[in-house]
């Protein structure tokens, strides 16, 4: 009954001040929504157990080789699997893109090559037919595949007779043995599952192919124990390989992590922690502001509270009574935030589906779930504690005699003043940090989006493929196949030109007549194997000639170098016919420069300037690679440009393995730009909301502080203080908090800027960080001063005689 009365009273109070209620709700919903959305998004992306039976026990096996991410080879897997006692299940698979031929055209789908045990590991049964068994992976067995429910419905109209029928996958007639349920895409984005033959397990020296692997630990075994055992076994294998194949020893470590974490390269937890910290800062800001607004309300009721206390109400009763207003706002804010976040997560799902044709990883399914709801409850409870309980407790524990006596001793106002100053300083610090992080992220994203890349990918299609080395073991055969494919593509009337570009890594080069005392003195350049004119991708010849048919393995080794390299090593002379020695693998090759081409952004640098590093193009006819990145420019308006490559591939050899589907070359880059733009926008919105929160919060805190000091203002004015001196007094006091908060934030920023400077490979001059810091500091100072000035101005409008009577 008493509680009902308190709630009724609180509701009446909220309706009585609709502006206060709306502002408090706005601040709370903003803070809660940003925190909740960030948590839910990151949790689903990195930590959430996979939506499979026993999904929490499904682990990806990742290898840290000298601290860098690596994968297991089939050989490693074969040798390890019988040595391990801590694992219940352990397997390998390969992810790929598979072309499904339908008459003259076809579609490409994400696929996985898997072995027996894969589907049992996932714990999902097919809705039709069977899964892959041991007989299917025997060398020479009939090719079989499982298709997804989506393919079954879209391409076969849900035909129940599909099992046993055939499908052409990458040119190979394959029997469909099963249909997997809707939404099943394990291990990542697969819509098709084919077999990973026993062939891969045959020992092939040290050249065994890399595979992804999965594991589940035995019941009663910890992840750490399993990791330790696997690391030990892998190190033993590696030591034997070092002796056997004379390879460089490496520090190896096995990590069992979620598939999501493995996808983020293990850095998911850092990003998760960082973004969650930012989101929690926003929530903290919101709590401070809501708490302050509610504190102002409870202080307004101080006399009422004192009367209630004098009439016999105990602390618990007073606290509960004072809390209800805040509790109702927090509950309503929490509820509305959950609705808002649910809508935002749904929108995120839709956006991802439209951006990523494959729909992305199957765990990229965002929506309101138990964990998010649980976190919403936690956040709401924290908000109630910080913004309702503490102000109510403070008010309920006031000195009633002082309050009822129209107190002038001021001990309480001193404490309140200190608290207010601390809160303003905290707000300034948090907002400054958020604004600085936001500005620097937006700056980096903006620079990344607008970075000069030195190429032209308009109307250019790209494909990546691997020549089957078992079928084409010699380099000559591989080169012939590539040239045949180039000719096939060129024959199409829509194709303007073709070039292959295969990045061979950053390599050392030794200039003639120059001695290098230390290894670190040896310069490097990005080496790209190429066949065909580079102008296809917008890299233009400026001096000399392109590669031609006479550049063969039997003739002198030739190179095209970038303008940056020509300028760096032969600044006042022509680079043509100059020579240098290039280290490729364990071999060194004497190279002659035959042409200079325009600069291009190096693949090895993410943020570097276009001329910061050099490129060396070597002829793909002289240095032959089985892996190729294939570019062809088509006429504008060409429809089904991807079909050009697929037809050429089928006419040349259907067994060529596409490692990435044929697509416009800009597509990947655009996706990255879009995601950077999204990141930039989110950061900007977050920073803007933080600024808005700060404005509201600091205004509220100052208004509260000024209101509490109205009487003092009256006294000061009674004894002769002018409006200006009172205003300056408040601005000076606010300025102190601003300087402390901003100073601390700038110190933190200095540390962060050093990190950013390294991360962006010193792309931005150091001066830009100063400009950024000064801009943010100035902007925030102006905002804070306005937020302090506004309530001060209002307070000094009051006549001193009124201010002296102000309670």
């Amino acid at each position, binding site marked *: 009954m008493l509680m009902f009365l308190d709630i009724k009273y609180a509701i009446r109070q909220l309706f009585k001040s609709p502006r206060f209620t709306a502002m408090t709700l706005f601040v709370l919903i903003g803070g809660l929504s940003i925190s909740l959305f960030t948590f839910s998004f990151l949790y689903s992306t990195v930590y959430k157990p996979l939506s499979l039976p026993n999904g929490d026990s499904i682990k990806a096996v990742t290898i840290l080789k000298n601290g860098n991410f690596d994968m297991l080879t089939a050989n490693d897997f074969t040798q390890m699997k019988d040595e391990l006692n801590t694992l219940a299940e352990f397997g390998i698979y390969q992810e790929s893109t598979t072309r499904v031929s339908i008459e003259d055209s076809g579609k490409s789908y994400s696929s996985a090559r898997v072995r027996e045990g894969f589907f049992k590991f996932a714990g999902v049964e097919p809705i039709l037919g069977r899964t892959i068994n041991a007989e299917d992976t025997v060398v020479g067995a009939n090719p079989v595949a499982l298709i997804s429910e989506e393919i079954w419905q879209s391409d076969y109209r849900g035909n129940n007779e599909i099992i046993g029928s055939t499908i052409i996958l990458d040119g190979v007639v394959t029997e469909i043995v099963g249909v997997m349920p809707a939404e099943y895409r394990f291990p990542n984005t697969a819509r098709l599952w084919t077999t990973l033959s026993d062939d891969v397990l045959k020992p092939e020296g040290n050249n065994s192919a890399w595979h992804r692997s999965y594991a589940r630990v035995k019941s009663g075994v910890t992840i750490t124990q399993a990791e330790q055992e696997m690391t030990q076994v892998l190190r033993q294998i590696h030591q034997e390989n070092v002796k056997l194949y004379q390879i460089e020893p490496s520090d190896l470590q096995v990590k069992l992590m979620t598939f999501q974490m493995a996808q983020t390269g293990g850095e998911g937890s850092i990003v998760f922690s960082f973004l969650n910290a930012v989101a929690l800062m926003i929530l903290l800001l919101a709590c401070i502001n809501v708490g302050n607004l509610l504190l102002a309300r409870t202080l307004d009721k101080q006399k009422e509270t004192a009367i209630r206390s004098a009439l016999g109400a105990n602390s618990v009763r007073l606290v509960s009574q004072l809390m209800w207003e805040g509790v109702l706002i927090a509950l309503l804010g929490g509820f509305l935030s959950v609705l808002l976040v649910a809508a935002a997560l749904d929108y995120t799902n839709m956006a991802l589906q439209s951006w990523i044709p494959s729909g992305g990883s199957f765990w990229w399914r965002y929506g309101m779930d138990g964990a998010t709801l649980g976190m919403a409850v936690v956040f709401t409870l924290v908000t109630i504690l910080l913004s309702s309980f503490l102000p109510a407790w403070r008010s309920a524990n006031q000195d009633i005699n002082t309050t009822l006596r*129209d107190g*002038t*001793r*001021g*001990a309480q*106002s*001193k404490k309140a*003043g200190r608290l207010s100053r601390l809160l303003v300083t905290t707000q300034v610090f948090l907002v400054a940090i958020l604004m600085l992080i936001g500005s620097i992220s937006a700056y980096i994203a903006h620079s990344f989006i607008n970075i000069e890349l030195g190429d032209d990918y308009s109307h250019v299609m790209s494909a990546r493929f691997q020549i089957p080395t078992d079928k084409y073991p010699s380099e000559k055969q591989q080169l012939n196949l590539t040239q045949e494919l180039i000719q096939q593509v060129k024959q199409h009337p829509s194709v303007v030109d073709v070039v292959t570009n295969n990045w061979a890594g950053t390599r050392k080069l030794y200039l003639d007549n120059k001695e290098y005392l230390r290894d670190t003195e040896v310069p490097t350049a990005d080496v790209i194997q190429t066949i065909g004119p580079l102008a296809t991708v917008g890299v233009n010849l400026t001096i000399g000639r392109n590669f031609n048919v006479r550049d063969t393995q039997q003739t002198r080794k030739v190179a095209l170098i970038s303008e940056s390299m020509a300028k760096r090593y032969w600044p006042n002379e022509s680079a043509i016919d100059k020579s240098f020695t290039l280290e490729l693998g364990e071999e060194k090759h004497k190279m002659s420069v035959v042409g200079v081409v325009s600069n291009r952004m190096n693949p090895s640098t993410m943020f570097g300037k276009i001329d910061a590093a050099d490129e060396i193009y070597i002829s793909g006819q002289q240095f032959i690679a089985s892996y190729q990145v294939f570019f062809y420019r088509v006429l504008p308006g060409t429809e089904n440009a991807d079909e050009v490559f697929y037809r050429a591939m089928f006419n040349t050899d259907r067994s060529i393995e596409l490692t990435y589907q044929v697509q416009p070359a800009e597509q990947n880059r655009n996706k990255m730009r879009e995601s950077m733009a999204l990141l930039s926008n989110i950061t900007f919105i977050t920073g803007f909301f933080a600024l808005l929160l700060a404005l509201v919060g600091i205004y509220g805190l100052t208004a509260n502080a000024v209101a509490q000091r109205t*009487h*003092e203002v*009256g*006294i*000061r*004015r*009674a*004894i*002769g*203080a*002018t*409006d*200006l*001196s009172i205003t300056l007094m408040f601005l000076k006091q606010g300025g102190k908090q601003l300087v402390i908060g901003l100073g601390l934030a700038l110190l933190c920023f200095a540390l962060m800027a050093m990190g950013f400077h390294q991360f962006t490979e010193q792309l931005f001059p150091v001066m830009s960080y100063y400009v950024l810091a000064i801009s943010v500091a100035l902007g925030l100072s102006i905002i804070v001063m306005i937020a302090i000035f506004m309530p001060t101005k209002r307070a000094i409008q009051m*006549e*001193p*005689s*009124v201010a*002296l009577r102000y309670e």
Partner: protein
Amino acid sequence: MSALITLENISKSFLTEDIETRALQQVSLTISQGEYLSLTGQSGCGKSTLLSLLGLLDSPTKGQYWLAGQDVSTLSRNERAAIRCKKIGFVFQSFNLISDLTVSENVMLPLTYQSGVTSSYIKDKVAEVLAKVEMSHRANHYPSQLSGGQQQRVAVARALVNTPDIILADEPTGNLDSKNAEAVMSLFDQLHQDGATICMVTHDPKSAKRAQRSLEMFDGQLVGDVKNTESNFTPKAVGV
């Protein structure tokens, strides 16, 4: 004695939620330099409003107010503030000391709002007035560390520090016990004897009779103005 303050037909109205409250109606009054007068009347009769107008804490709705020969009825807020910090000293019922400032900081406040006052002058003057009210030993204490009587003595010191033309006191003994009230009243007597002009609002008939002249108010109007025969003090000199 020459007139320090002259009020002519002063009225003051307050408008709250469309209701006009006439706090003062056609009040005319002259206060001479060195005069010690008390202002009495029932609660709500307009005593404090009149005191606020005299102290330039508020401006009249109608009428004219001359202070030391200057028409101050239509001055701006800042002009009124400038006169307050030079010519007027206030003593309030609830002391109105600033809790975050020490005794000496509270006392020096009016001087800090004046331009051209040196810090050594402020220091000397603060020491002088604190000595006068016998509070030198508490100069570095905060108001919350003082008793009510001590706080009021500090308030009196603050009222004296700018050597005002007039001291306005609003129920100066209202929050004090009889012993402290007597001490404060004695201080006022002493100040008057030293030549100060004092105008004091009080409910206490005994305190009122210590002044030379008693004004009585009723419903916003002056209804009584009598010389007190019981008052034994005459000022020694003009000004404090």
